[in-house]
């Protein structure tokens, strides 16, 4: 931090919160709230006279509340910039600090929060992680037993700058503990609290154990674990060193810690799995290695930045393997544990990658985006004709559409990621998606259903998941019905109801509406829009008397090739179960219903011209002049 603050091109804005982020890649407008420190940065020299004079003492958050601090304070000794701060929640307005500051006149109680607007090219989010509070896990007695402490408290007790000046002592009687237990996976790998593994705690437990062993070689240290995970370079060797140093590893998750109320000694009962028997040991002190969880205000930050969250609450990356440092929004990047728990080497690697990605933007005059962006036909948009609408604006997961009543909607191209949710939702067909225009998709549908359409299964696949699933089914040689005809769009949100009506009008036997699982969607909430529409369509088709199974909704990830093949085969079986004449009669019966719903489609620009061409190809296919 000190190094960064000294760089002339880096400006550190400490004690400042991000309030609002607007704009798009290269042109963000960020609103910041610089909180009032009540100390003038240009005058304070960090002499600590104010803190010495201050009579108010409150728990020190940085010391895990194990030590006090004054109301005039710096958060920690390495704070950047080294400027004191007055905690207004604790201050009693005695103004002793003003006296102590004297001629420097750095303390100014009239300072107020400042709102700053900045033009920003790229954003790197590095908000880190929070700690799980083990109090709800009553079986471990944290908060009840004084000698049960968390890993972060141990970190302070063991620190030469900490409240005990580095001499480890147990809270109940300030004596040095002889026997220490470390319990791993407290609140992590636990379906009741956090399902996931916190990634670095195994190494962290070993590090702490070795550190303590080096300082106090006679100390008896045991680590309770479910599995020890040492996957990176040199980690297993480190684990070896710990065993060599005499640290005991006990495989078994303790069910309970009990305490002798007179001596505050702790007893841990656990199964020693390798021994195959339940063992009970006595300890002077127990350290709970608590889970890493998202920051308490991660939800708030996620809405400020407009980036989605993964199921665990962490920020969601663009792609978990190929673009782990990118957010789904162009120009916003992640560094470190805000995207998921990770250790120091991984955080440094991701941070450096994020910085490199961000500098690419800062050094470019132009920026390339996906070519599949949405475009509005102003003459078709009803908003331009004075009607209230705004459906497209609400559909867009990226906030890329500007809607004002009276003016036709406008797509901010730089923000558009090309999911086509607005295109699918627009009831007036006033938006189209480049490379997936209605004319283009309709042409595909018509040619796919040119010959014997009642035998075909038309599969709408989303580019990222179900298309990948179908691909995997092919490369894995999972056999599925040859009557399937795949049609690729960018997202299930683009699967316009009109396209499905048209396919049924043409006599399609069955239609598969497929896309990503909700948490995998590459367009934040695109799948949710698609799923809503699909459910609506499904209900309507059932009401119209369509045989069950002719319209099917499935969410298939790119890794689920087997599922794709199974779904198609099941659909084929459903089709086979309907007698041919009944199926044909049903298609004929539903045709007028579909035509009723399709009134607008034919005057969408480009459709008529395209259909002339397509009709020629279709007739050639039907005459077997071109291969089917």
């Amino acid at each position: 931090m000190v190094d960064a603050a000294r760089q002339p091109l880096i400006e550190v804005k400490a004690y400042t919160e991000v309030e609002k982020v607007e704009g798009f890649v290269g042109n963000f407008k960020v609103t910041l709230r610089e909180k009032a420190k009540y100390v003038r940065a240009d005058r304070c020299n960090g002499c600590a006279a104010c803190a010495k004079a201050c009579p108010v003492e409150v728990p020190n958050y940085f010391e895990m509340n194990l030590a006090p601090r004054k109301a005039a304070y710096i958060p920690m000794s390495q704070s950047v910039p080294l400027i004191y701060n007055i905690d207004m929640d604790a201050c009693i307005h005695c103004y002793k600090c003003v006296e102590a500051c004297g001629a420097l006149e750095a303390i100014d109680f009239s300072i107020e929060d400042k709102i700053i607007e900045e033009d920003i090219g790229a954003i790197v989010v590095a908000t880190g992680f929070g700690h799980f509070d083990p109090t709800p896990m009553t079986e471990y007695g944290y908060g009840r037993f004084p000698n049960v402490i968390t890993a972060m408290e141990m970190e302070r007790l063991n620190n030469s700058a900490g409240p005990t000046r580095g001499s480890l002592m147990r809270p109940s009687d300030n004596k040095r503990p002889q026997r220490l237990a470390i319990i791993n996976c407290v609140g992590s790998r636990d379906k009741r609290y956090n399902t996931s593994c916190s990634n670095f705690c195994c190494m962290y437990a070993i590090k702490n154990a070795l550190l303590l062993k080096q300082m106090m070689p006679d100390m008896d240290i045991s680590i309770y674990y479910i599995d020890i995970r040492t996957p990176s370079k040199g980690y297993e060797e480190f684990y070896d060193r710990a065993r060599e140093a005499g640290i005991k590893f006990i495989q078994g998750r303790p069910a309970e810690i009990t305490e002798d109320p007179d001596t505050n000694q702790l007893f841990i009962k656990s199964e020693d799995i390798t021994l195959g028997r339940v063992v009970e040991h006595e300890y002077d002190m127990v350290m709970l290695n608590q889970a890493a969880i998202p920051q308490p205000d991660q939800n708030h930050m996620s809405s400020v930045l407009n980036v989605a969250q993964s199921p665990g609450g962490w920020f969601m990356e663009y792609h978990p393997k190929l673009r782990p440092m990118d957010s789904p929004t162009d120009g916003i990047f992640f560094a470190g544990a805000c995207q998921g728990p990770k250790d120091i080497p991984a955080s440094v690697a991701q941070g450096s990658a994020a910085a490199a990605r961000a500098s690419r933007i800062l050094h470019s005059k132009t920026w390339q985006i996906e070519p599949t962006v949405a475009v509005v036909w102003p003459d078709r948009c009803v908003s331009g004709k004075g009607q209230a609408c705004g459906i497209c604006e609400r559909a867009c997961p990226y906030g890329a559409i500007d809607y004002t009543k009276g003016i036709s909607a406008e797509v901010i191209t730089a923000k558009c990621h090309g999911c086509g949710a607005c295109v699918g939702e627009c009831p007036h067909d006033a938006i189209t998606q480049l490379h997936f225009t209605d004319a283009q998709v309709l042409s595909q549908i018509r040619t796919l259903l040119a010959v014997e359409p009642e035998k075909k299964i038309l599969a709408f696949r989303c580019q990222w998941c179900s298309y990948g699933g179908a691909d995997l089914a092919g490369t894995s040689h999972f056999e599925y019905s040859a009557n399937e005809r795949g049609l690729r769009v960018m997202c299930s949100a683009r699967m316009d109801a009109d396209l499905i009506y048209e396919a049924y009008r043409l006599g399609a036997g069955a239609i598969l509406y497929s896309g990503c699982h909700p948490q995998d969607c590459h367009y934040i909430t695109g799948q949710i829009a698609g799923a809503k529409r699909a459910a609506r369509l499904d209900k309507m088709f059932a009401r119209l008397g369509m045989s069950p199974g002719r319209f099917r909704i499935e969410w298939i990830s790119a890794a689920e090739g087997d599922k794709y093949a199974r779904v198609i085969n099941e659909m084929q079986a459903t089709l086979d179960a309907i007698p041919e004449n009944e199926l044909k009669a049903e298609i004929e019966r539903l045709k007028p219903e579909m035509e009723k719903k399709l009134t607008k489609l034919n005057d969408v620009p480009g459709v008529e011209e395209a259909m002339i061409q397509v009709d020629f190809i279709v007739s050639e296919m039907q005459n077997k002049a071109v291969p089917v």
Partner: protein
Amino acid sequence: MNHTVSADSFAEQVKAIPGGEMLMMCFSCGTCTSKCMIQEKLEPNYNPRRLIREAVFNLEETAFSDKTTWLCTACDLCYPACPQEIHISGVITAVKQLAVAQGRQTPYQTARVNESTCVACGLCVEVCPYEAIALVEKKVPFRGLISVAEVDPGKCMACGMCSAACRSTSIRLDQEFNDNHVLENIWTWLESEVF
């Protein structure tokens, strides 16, 4: 050891019984074993984690002869402690059901009905926490075809609730913790210097 994963493997059979669905989710942390009162007070070799493992690896015989199968009282102390939220007593009951279906019997005592005095009042049926007792029509020597209580040894955990409830001492535990044992205990305590 039979590792095959087929529909009729032992693990699949356990999973198919309601309560046994979560069998494969166990990551063997041992919390259940260290939480267990039976392990602590009664049988040191009692181990639910090991029983789950035996079921996962299709060790049918070992699982059936394991004391864990027969001793679990479904007190469910382990259930809220399990980080994988496995209903462990459900899995154990599933194993036990399979064992009973194959004609296995618990090696431990179960409640016995004295059919010559039972009047089929149904008190024991109502108090039994394991739903192990039912009234059945039965031909009893010297009494003819009458209704009497019958204990399902596959379900009975020998808790003694029925014995305490029965007004004609027609149902009781006849090995450990029978009436004489309990009375002796009471007398010993009354004579001791504690009182």
